């Protein structure tokens, strides 16, 4: 009975949604930042390797990005 009343007044679903996407975005942001930093560093060390570094960097940052997207899917599936 009490929980029903509390559920009627307090709606935690938006909080859960925003936490899901927000926390996963932190992780993905850190990951992509690290990938980008290392790629820039290695291009700075060896400017001729730009072509070789670019494609793996993009692919790996898409992997890191996928984590945030899992969070987005979860956020959308919370009702």
């Amino acid at each position, binding site marked *: 009975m009490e929980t029903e009343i509390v559920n009627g007044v307090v709606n935690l679903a938006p909080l859960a949604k925003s936490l899901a996407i927000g926390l996963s975005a932190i992780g993905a942001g850190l990951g992509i930042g690290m990938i980008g930093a290392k790629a820039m560093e290695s291009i700075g060390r060896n400017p001729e390797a730009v072509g070789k570094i670019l494609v793996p960097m*993009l*692919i790996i940052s*898409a*992997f890191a*990005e*996928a984590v945030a*997207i*899992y969070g*987005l*899917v979860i956020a*959308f*599936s919370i009702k």
Partner: protein
Amino acid sequence: MENNKIEIQENIVTTNNIENNIKVEEKPSHEVTIYAEPVFHIGSFQVTNSLLTSWLAVLVVLVFSIIIRMKLKKIPGKLQHVFEVIIDGALSLVDQVTNDRKISKKVFPLVFSLFIFILVSNWLGLLPILGSIGLIAKEGAHSVFIPFLRSGTADINTTLALSIMIVLASNFFGILTIGLWKTFNKYVNLKGLGSIFTKVRKDPTVLIVAPINFFVGLLELLGEMAKIASLSFRLFGNVFAGEVLLASMSAILAFIVPGPFLFLEVFVGLIQALIFSLLATVYFTIAAQDHSEHDEHKEKHHEKETVHV
């Protein structure tokens, strides 16, 4: 006479309903839903808008391949030349992953057609015309706008089917290349458990190592499930997130602002298709490798070294 009256009344009622419908339909909600919306039914079979688009993608691929097949020449024309360059590049990419021309020749047709299909269905969802033509359906009290076409990969069922197909096919490929017994032992390591009895005199550490290997094998079985989940959610999530992003950007300002994001989504569609097919190649390569042979080889090498010492 009475019958006529009733009919007239019914007519009035129906017209009222239509008017009500029109009033409701003035503001249909354009919310992007996480599931694909059913457009029409064939019997009890729901035909969703994602299914329609994936049929369209198949049609596009089919038409292109038939055109190229009809005009196939030894001295390539412009269209054939473009596709030859693409296929050559893709084959060399697969070669880089597999490190073996035999495996890459076997894997390439499946993986590359997967790439083309995913790419076409990703990009079909981005065409500006596709999302805007649709019908307005009534769901309970609300009326909802249902576009006729929605990107095929923006439906979890499509990506789930693709990834289940890939994982099953990679295991079948493993069975065909290294044999049923070895593939079985990757997951349920009976061979390792058996080696307790044969090797325990020579090497007592096998008492600890073999159960651990058995457990690792079970974990790998769980890893196959994880492969299905990660493959399908990655593709679905990226395409769906792109649709949501474009919708919300168009809601902010319908001109200029969605432009860069549309370009980004074209790029993301390409990258995701590439990643999906590359990962599929990696799974096929892993399935074709024989772990136990590698270990035995190492052991033999080790024994030789000890003999030399």
